């Protein structure tokens, strides 16, 4: 199904939340001082995004156009609060690790952005897929940023992975060189530097790929399925 493939490619790469849409930069900069943290935030956001997209798509017939934004905000805030409560009650170990990120998700504009530009115009299945793809793209971006900053700043990559993913994933924890790296990479300034470099890298890659067979740029438009007349 080419539509599904389009949605996936759009979310993960072409229209990537951080590198193309430039949304959710606040969590992207704030939590990516280590790869594991980026991964944790990405996964938590992905889970909420799939659920909120599906819910908004399911209820889209009930929501009138004029009050859609407050209705979306209400749905998302309720969903995130319930996820937070349920995780705290029955997945307490996971909550201890991800709990920090969950309240941050409420204010993540990515969630509202996808509800507004995709989920309220598409079926439940496609919206859930869009949430999955956008969430995966977000996770990819955050993990990459975290890994680069961690390698530059601490000399390790995926430190603390065993805490997040279980003891089996402790093998991911790698020390690349001994001693501490450049401190600036862990500090907020390093976040901006790495983000800038990665956006530049993505643009260069895209331009490179586009050169042989010219196609209309879709970097600035929202997903084609949503923009289609």
């Amino acid at each position, binding site marked *: 199904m080419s539509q599904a493939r389009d949605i996936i490619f759009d979310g993960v790469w072409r229209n990537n939340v951080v590198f193309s849409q430039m949304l959710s930069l606040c969590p992207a900069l704030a939590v990516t*001082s280590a790869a594991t943290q980026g991964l944790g935030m990405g996964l938590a956001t992905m889970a909420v995004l799939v659920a909120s997209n599906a819910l908004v798509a399911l209820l889209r017939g009930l*929501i009138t156009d004029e009050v859609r934004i*407050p209705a979306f905000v209400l749905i998302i*805030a309720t969903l995130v609060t*319930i996820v937070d*409560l349920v995780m705290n*009650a029955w997945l307490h170990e996971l909550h201890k690790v991800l709990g920090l990120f969950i309240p941050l998700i409420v204010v993540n504009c990515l969630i509202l952005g996808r509800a507004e530009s995709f989920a309220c115009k598409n079926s439940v299945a496609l919206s859930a897929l869009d949430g999955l793809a956008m969430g995966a793209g977000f996770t990819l971006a955050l993990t990459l940023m975290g890994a680069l900053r961690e390698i530059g700043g601490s000399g390790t990559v995926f430190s*603390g992975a065993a805490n997040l993913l279980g003891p089996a994933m402790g093998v991911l924890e790698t020390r690349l060189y001994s001693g501490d790296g450049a401190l600036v990479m862990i500090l907020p300034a390093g976040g901006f530097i790495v983000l800038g470099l990665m956006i530049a890298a993505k643009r260069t890659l895209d331009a490179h790929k586009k050169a042989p067979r010219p196609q209309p740029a879709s970097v600035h438009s929202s997903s084609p399925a949503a923009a289609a007349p």
Partner: protein
Amino acid sequence: MNTTDTTPTIPPVASLSQRLARVIELVGGKHAVVLGGFSLAATLLLTVAYSLTKEPIEQSALEDLRHSLEQVIPASIHDNNPAGDTLQLQVDGSPVLVYRARQAKQITGIAFETSTRGYGGDIRVLLGIDQNGKLLGVRVLHHTETPGLGDKIEVTRSSWITRFTGLSLGDPPDAQWAVKKDGGPFDQFAGATITPRAVVNGVRDGLRLFAAHRETLLQEATP
């Protein structure tokens, strides 16, 4: 003059659906009903979720506390449940909750939480102290220090915090409770001095609190 004429009224002979439609129009049309309905549903869902999760959450919070207490009070020195044997101490007008460890009814150690100002906010530290004023263990319960720099105060990330075990107010001497940069024996972290300095100060203040209230804290009241 004609105020009574403009006031919308429900016709007396209207079917139920007509009345309902009129009421909806009066309160602002369909939008208000949609938004009101969503708010009502959200409130209902949250109430249900809250009441269902309340008890398990409290249970796991208690479990966390018990786990932290186990780390600062070794099991070998008590036969009671310190989490359930508490004492409310008033220090400068603010309450401090003290957990007491007993062996054959004798208090062998206590644990309490103290708060210290770190780089990114308050750092909450749990201290375990034996009856002679010697530290049994120190653990950080909560902090908002810079990840990758200041978070080495967590025992899961670094063994730094275990350095305090066995120390007391005179050992090292009072003036020596400082990080190496300030002339003391405690390591600071590369790129983070404020965080370890805050913890060192917090632990010392906790020991001072113990010294000042020693009698009350070790008082043999039946649990």
